[in-house]
């Protein structure tokens, strides 16, 4: 059933660029797919209580490193992107390993990663001679396979493929034995360690996956948009945006982060088109209120709520959903 739905959905998405829609819609769908991938990556940590406010940092590293290598050393993104992703993961490990060993969890983990977001954003701004600072930078244009610069349709398929891979990764983690271990860790770390779970290894594995996805998406966003700005690709603002979308959609569900991306991006665009630029800030005002309401009333997000509802039906088999709380 769900497999058929998935196949149909994918087919529909694959056909999208050929439906004769204005380019704008393809552009939006592409952005939604890429951001969904980021949110899905974040939720791999968030759902196990590793609430990171540092994903803006990984996105920024993933975006800037290949662009800088390309502009200054003419290194192809084919090499630059893996370097950027590796660097993002390395930074995550430098923070993640001691955090896990020293039990920096909950608030503390959130605030340490928040500081990381700022380090990367301010670092980019400070190195303005190289990165263009707050004005942003543009990768040198050279549409070719070598430069990984394509037209919109080609990029759309890259984004679609990336998104599908993201879902597959989410599913694999969800079904793996590691998910059980991580659930135990987020419930009670000491108890989990006592029954023989290697807490640090489990946490780092999911951290590596999550940050690698985020760094990779950062690179793709930069390659597609051909413009990098520290405010939109790094820093606390981006980190919070990631957290909000993932929570709103539902970080405990496969399609939750995707729904979060659809919701936030279309809401932002709709308000922008509807009210124009003299209504700057309207979208985020509404995001802010929604985020508060979501956490108070439905911490499992939209998809989580739908799932819980449908499971409550008497004919539905299987265990009831766990108590509706985002664990920290």
């Amino acid at each position, binding site marked *: 059933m769900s497999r058929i739905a998935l196949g149909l959905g994918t087919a529909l998405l694959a056909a999208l660029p050929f439906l004769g829609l204005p380019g704008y819609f393809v552009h939006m769908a592409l952005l939604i797919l890429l951001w969904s991938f980021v949110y899905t990556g974040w939720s791999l940590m968030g759902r196990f209580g590793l*609430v990171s406010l540092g994903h803006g940092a990984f996105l920024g590293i993933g975006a800037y490193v290949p662009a800088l290598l390309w502009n200054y050393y003419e290194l192809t993104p084919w090499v630059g992107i893996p370097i950027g992703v590796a660097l993002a993961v390395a930074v995550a490990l430098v923070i993640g390993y001691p955090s896990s060993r020293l039990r920096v969890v*909950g608030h503390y983990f*959130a605030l340490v990663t928040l500081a990381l977001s700022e380090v990367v954003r*301010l670092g980019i701004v400070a190195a303005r001679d190289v990165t263009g600072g707050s004005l942003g930078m543009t990768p040198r244009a050279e549409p070719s396979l070598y430069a990984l610069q394509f037209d919109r349709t080609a990029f759309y398929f890259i984004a679609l493929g990336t998104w599908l891979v993201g879902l597959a990764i989410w599913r694999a983690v969800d079904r793996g034995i590691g998910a059980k271990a991580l659930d135990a860790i987020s419930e009670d770390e000491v108890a989990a360690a006592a029954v023989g779970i290697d807490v640090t290894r489990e946490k780092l594995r999911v951290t590596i996956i999550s940050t690698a996805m985020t760094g990779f998406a950062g690179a793709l966003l930069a390659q597609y948009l051909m413009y990098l700005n520290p405010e939109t690709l790094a820093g606390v603002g981006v980190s919070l945006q990631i957290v909000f979308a993932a929570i709103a959609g539902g970080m405990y569900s496969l399609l939750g982060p995707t729904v979060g991306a659809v919701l936030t991006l279309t809401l932002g665009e709709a308000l922008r088109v509807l009210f124009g630029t003299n209504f*700057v*800030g309207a979208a985020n005002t509404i995001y802010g209120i929604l*985020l*508060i*309401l979501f956490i108070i009333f439905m911490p499992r997000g939209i998809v989580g709520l739908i799932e819980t509802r449908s499971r409550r039906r008497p004919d539905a088999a299987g265990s009831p959903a766990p108590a509706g*709380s985002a664990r920290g």
Partner: protein
Amino acid sequence: MDIFLVESIVNGILLGGVLALLALGLNLVFGVIDVVWIAYAELVMVGMYAIYWLHAFYGWPLLLACGVAILLVAIIGVLVHLLIIEPILDQPPINQLLATGGLLFFLQSFATLLFGTDFRNIGLKLPVLEIGDMFVSFARLLAFAIALIGAAGLYVFLRRTFIGTAIRAIAQDREIMGLMGVDARKIYLATSGIGGGLAGLAACLLVLQYDVHPFIGLSFGPITFMICVLGGLGNMIGGFLASFIIAQIISVGGFYAPVEFAYVLAFAFFIVLILIRPQGILAK
């Protein structure tokens, strides 16, 4: 020693006073309610806007405008607790942090919506003092003095009054205080109000030195959290000490390199230290 270096050290000390005041309110709320108000700096921004409109636009006397701003932010602090924190008080602390993250988004964008992204200045020109060969801004000196007075006032309040004692007690042992007949809810509301009031006071001091704009919270918020964590969340003396350390790094770092690098240095210092001493600099 280089006179400009001395000047940056002195300015660092003055900056430390303001940061200490910012950290104080956040630490109080954390220590008592076990909640991180991630929108704390945005509450400061609300206070700054209030002062700007009342003083620069409606022409109220500055002191009156400051008083009203402190009261206003104190009320908002109480509302934050009532509307956002209380419904999710029994959920994991990280949810409360994220919910106030929503408040951060809301306040920031609502300010953009109402006032635009213009930088606004209350238009008060305070003199620059010349001490020896050094130049020290009077506004900073004033802010430093008031920050210290505010901190001392809070100390006396917590030590000498009944409600202050109850606040300290509940920070030490949440469970037992209910048995002693203390209404935790009342204490939480009082704490939120005082925390908000301290944010309002910080707003009065910052508005003397900085322009108001919707994103000003982002330039103080992260650094304030860092200071609180560095001092040990809830540990006010630690927070006080950490403020001056961080302020020196920023100020002296800014003397040798661009100011953003000084901030990067401060954040990096924080990350390293917190991984060495996760319970804060004063932890045993």
